[in-house]
């Protein structure tokens, strides 16, 4: 069943800043099949979160198409969009900031149900909230607690329950575990995996932690300064990284394997500014392979092997 859940074409999001136009997302295209997980990785500020927000129309895209089950959601009006929110949800990075500190766990989980009038009675609401809490592994004792009384792991479970309340098919997870301690992180990752198996969810999983992404995702897209530089299945990407940036990124991951430590290629320099970027490969400044041809015009993603795409001049010449 290789039905496409979401397809994004030429997505752009530019912000106006005092210094100029900030190209947060600059022509990103990809698609996700139903029931699969697409991982988006990249360094801080490369536009991962912005991509997620634009897809959910929490931010309006500057350009591009977002096809959700075939229909372009950018053309929907406010009302239709609100209906569509039952289908697509988001889990945020910071489990503290994303929960209203003045609402109890049950109030937070119940809110989407109330807004979309999915329950008919108070009793049904209570039942449904309890169901959801049970689903994400929250004890019913916690119904009346406030977020600050809970640890990060539980808070994140509330966030997950809120996202699940509307029975969405598709969830964007924006770094859902990076604020958590390692031991809790593993608990939450397992939960999300279980939920996907049971409910057949489709995920976009945004993170900067490559080991998590490898563990969790079917496909992986690597972003650099608003653009996608490589996309492949998890296995292929890790066994055969092609884009110089991907290679550098993978080799930079600190590993616990004491024998693997010395073979690294460390990148020189830092990410350049996304404000009014010059055309051409955004990575060229830090790239060992770069030559003058890299800075002529933007380089599109090209298929370099079956289902393996990369945006690099040097690979395709």
């Amino acid at each position, binding site marked *: 069943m290789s039905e496409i859940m979401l397809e994004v074409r030429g997505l752009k999001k530019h912000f106006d800043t005092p210094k100029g136009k900030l190209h947060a997302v600059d022509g990103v295209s990809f698609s996700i099949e139903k029931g699969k997980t697409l991982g988006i990785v990249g*360094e*801080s500020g490369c536009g991962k979160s912005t991509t997620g927000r634009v897809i959910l129309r929490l931010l309006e895209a500057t350009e591009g198409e977002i096809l959700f089950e075939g229909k372009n959601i950018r053309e929907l009006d406010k009302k239709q969009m609100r209906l569509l929110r039952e289908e697509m949800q988001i889990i945020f990075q910071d489990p503290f900031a994303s929960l209203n500190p003045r609402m109890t766990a049950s109030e937070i989980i119940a809110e989407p149900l109330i807004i979309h009038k999915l329950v008919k009675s108070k009793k049904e609401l209570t039942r449904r909230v309890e169901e959801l809490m049970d689903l994400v592994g929250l004890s019913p004792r916690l119904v009346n607690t406030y977020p600050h009384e809970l*640890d990060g*792991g539980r808070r994140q479970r509330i966030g997950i329950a809120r996202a699940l309340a509307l029975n969405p098919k598709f969830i964007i997870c924006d770094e859902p575990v990076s604020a958590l*301690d*390692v*031991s*809790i*992180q*593993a*608990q939450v*990752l*397992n939960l999300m*995996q279980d939920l996907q198996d049971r409910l057949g969810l489709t995920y976009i999983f945004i993170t*900067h932690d*490559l*080991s*998590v992404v*490898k*563990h*969790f995702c079917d496909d992986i897209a690597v972003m650099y300064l608003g653009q996608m530089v490589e996309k492949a299945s998890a296995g292929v990407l*890790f066994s055969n990284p092609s884009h110089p940036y991907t290679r*550098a*990124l993978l*080799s*930079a*991951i*600190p*590993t*616990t*394997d*004491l024998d*693997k*430590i010395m073979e*690294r290629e*460390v*990148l*020189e320099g*830092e*990410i350049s500014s996304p404000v009014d970027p010059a055309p051409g490969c955004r990575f060229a400044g830090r790239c060992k392979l770069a030559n003058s041809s890299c800075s002529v015009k933007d380089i599109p993603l090209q298929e370099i092997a079956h289902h393996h795409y990369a945006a690099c001049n040097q690979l395709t010449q």
Partner: protein
Amino acid sequence: MSEQNKGQPLLSVENLSIVYEVGGEITRAVSHINLTLNRGETLGLIGETGAGKTTTALGVMRLVPNPPGRVAGGKVFYDGCDLLDLPEDRMREIRGNKVSMIFQDPMTSLNPVMTVGDQIAEVVLIHQSVDKPQSINKAKEMLEMVGIPAGRYSEYPHQFSGGMKQRVVIAIALACNPDLLIADEPTTALDVTIQAQVLDLMKGLKQKYNTAMIMISHDLGVVAQVCDKVAIMYAGEIVESGPIRDVYQNTQHPYTKGLFGSIPDLNKDVERLVPIKGLMPDPTHLPKGCRFHPRCPEATALCSKVSPKPVSTLVGGDHIVSCHLAHPQLECAG
């Protein structure tokens, strides 16, 4: 002083305990910990949030904020003399000079209203008998050394990226060639690629100056990159310590095992992670007995009553574990 103390370890923390008292509640942030570190060695201090890593480091620097914090007992020998006994002005001569510390968050560790160069020059001016222009030259040297053009001396921290700020912080810490550098999660806030740069830089400097280092982290991978020895902290105690190979490859304590089970390994494909169940205990109400026992899959009745003593494992003399499972004889007695 260093001549006659050749045989001794550079730093030796004995039985150090630190508590915080807030609103009548006592947090035992650090309880009876022991650490030793020789010249040129690097120790990795690993633990989850709230384990007491930063507090330990502050204890060594004698910078535990008071109130609410207080050193409740123990000794910190540096080069043979107890830092906790020194008068404040003597301690000030050591800080930033013999012992330096890099704090957790580079974004906030620099004074936003002083130029980065002045912040480096200041430490030189305090500790070395140089005049102002000399200290400025030295600061420029340090900037170049950490890979920042000296021309950016008069810029302010907000004009720098996270990685550059972290490098400035390192430059401050190393400006007086300290014997001991304490780095508190120096790369946690940074992206992987920048993290790799900074780790490389620190490794290089350490080799060049033979600086001893305590590297605090919750990332097992980062510690593996730079450390010779590790100590694993849990709820204010060191549960396992020893040479890095012993601890990583012959893991003894259930908590350490749990940590390894929680992180996805790039080299292995596992269907599910094996997390440690439960949560860190409430620091003001620590469990009796072994502090890890409520979460420990192997806990016995004894574990909930008696706290385990640190013992050497059978493998090597330096590999120390605090766990009843490593004391088979006691188990019988219990």
